[in-house]
């Protein structure tokens, strides 16, 4: 049986892992390569590394860091931030990443998804999206609107419609990172995660809001996520991957228990 994936997320600013609430008040948490190795040895199923300021600063991703992570771990990892061309995608894959995550640049230029899927295969093109709840259901019937650039811009795009469009364009996986839940540790935003999981036939990753193992259980059982991203609670050491997996396993959720 396919197991549910638990994916630590490393947000990078200037080659340091940082964590903030809703992209504000970022604090330094450590070296990305050391943390990638620690989580890999601790039993994570995959990693995601976001160069979170690359897009806003209009510069390409830090490819040297991607290479170092690839050299250090033997599990898959996705890379996002500052990917705007097929050349950028090719460089990230050749540096050893398994997947490329596109987010705000895909909103401006959806053809990056189809171009990437055609050139490298859908399975390595991940659409990341940052939906926020909106009262404007005339424009966004799902009640959720896609935002971009570190949640600073609203796009007018309905989150579910955008997920379906991205799937049609060739995205092989969709990360639903709730703006409202991000950094709160109050649990994933189950409503939009489930709406998107129902709407698309590709895997959906829940992101933003993990505070304990029960939150992951709910993302898997109630929102039908295929994977969940965890950041703050792991970074601070409040809980380990082993503890999360033990709890999920005890609840009957399929997770990888030996590594």
């Amino acid at each position, binding site marked *: 049986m396919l197991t549910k994936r638990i994916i630590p997320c490393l947000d990078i600013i200037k080659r340091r892992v940082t964590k903030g609430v809703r992209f504000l008040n970022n604090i330094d948490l450590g070296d990305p390569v050391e943390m990638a190795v620690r989580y890999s040895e601790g039993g994570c199923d995959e990693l995601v590394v976001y160069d979170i300021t690359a897009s806003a600063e209009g510069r390409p991703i830090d490819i040297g860091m991607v290479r170092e992570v690839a050299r250090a771990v033997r599990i898959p990892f996705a890379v996002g931030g500052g990917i705007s061309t097929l050349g950028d995608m090719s460089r990230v894959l050749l540096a050893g990443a398994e997947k490329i995550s596109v987010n705000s640049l895909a909103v401006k230029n959806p053809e990056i998804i189809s171009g990437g899927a055609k050139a490298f295969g859908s399975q390595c093109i991940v659409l990341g999206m940052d939906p926020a709840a909106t009262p404007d259901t005339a424009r966004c019937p799902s009640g959720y609107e896609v935002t971009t650039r570190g949640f600073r811009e609203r796009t007018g795009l309905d989150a579910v419609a955008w997920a379906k469009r991205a799937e049609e364009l060739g995205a092989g996986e969709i990360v639903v990172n709730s703006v409202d839940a991000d950094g709160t540790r109050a649990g994933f935003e189950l409503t939009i995660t489930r709406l998107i999981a129902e709407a698309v*036939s590709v895997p959906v990753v829940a992101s933003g809001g993990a505070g304990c193992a029960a939150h992951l259980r709910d993302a898997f059982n109630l929102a039908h996520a295929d994977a969940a991203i965890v950041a703050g609670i792991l970074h601070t050491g409040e809980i380990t991957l082993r503890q999360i997996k033990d709890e999920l396993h005890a609840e009957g959720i399929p997770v990888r228990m030996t*590594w």
Partner: protein
Amino acid sequence: MIAIIDYKAGNLTSVRLAFGALGCEALVTSDPQAILAADRVVFPGVGAAGAAMWNLADLTLIAPIKEVASRGTPFLGICLGTQILFDSSEEDGGTTTLGILPGRVPRFRPSNRWDKVPQIGWNQVAQARRHPLLDGIPDNGEFYFVHSFYPAPADPALAIGLTGYAGVSFASMVGRANVAATQFHPEKSGRIGLRLLDNFTRWTPTPDV
């Protein structure tokens, strides 16, 4: 020396790095002579079958791949490399592939809405038979998969490992004589994946295995 065949289908760095972690020299190459001269050949790849076949033809790699696979050189297919060893793939509207192993490569057609395609993640590999590449690897050990299509060998005896997904039990590892091939990514499958690659570097195939 291990040759990793480069046919512009991604993922080669992680394969090279995995062999590097085992202390083995592996050359990423699209030179037919280097592939023919190699002690061992790895045929990896991610991407689409149609583009892969076009690239292989363009790089004049089809004949050398068929030659090393037929003359006993230890040969390991991975993911897309495994799929295009078969006769045909449903991908890209139907693609004729290398025909080194008999069989075809259909797409997952899940009847359950929650079985997503592609399959992405760690799934168990049940060992259908003993094979030197699985030495030291537990039965039902978990490996990392990323794929929408899967091997369906014409002869079930080709299956070395079986994995269940989207209502089918498919051959996640196949092999005959000197050719072994995995749908999963050993280079991305942590400790047990490295063990499989380590076994490959020491594998002396026998014609009947």
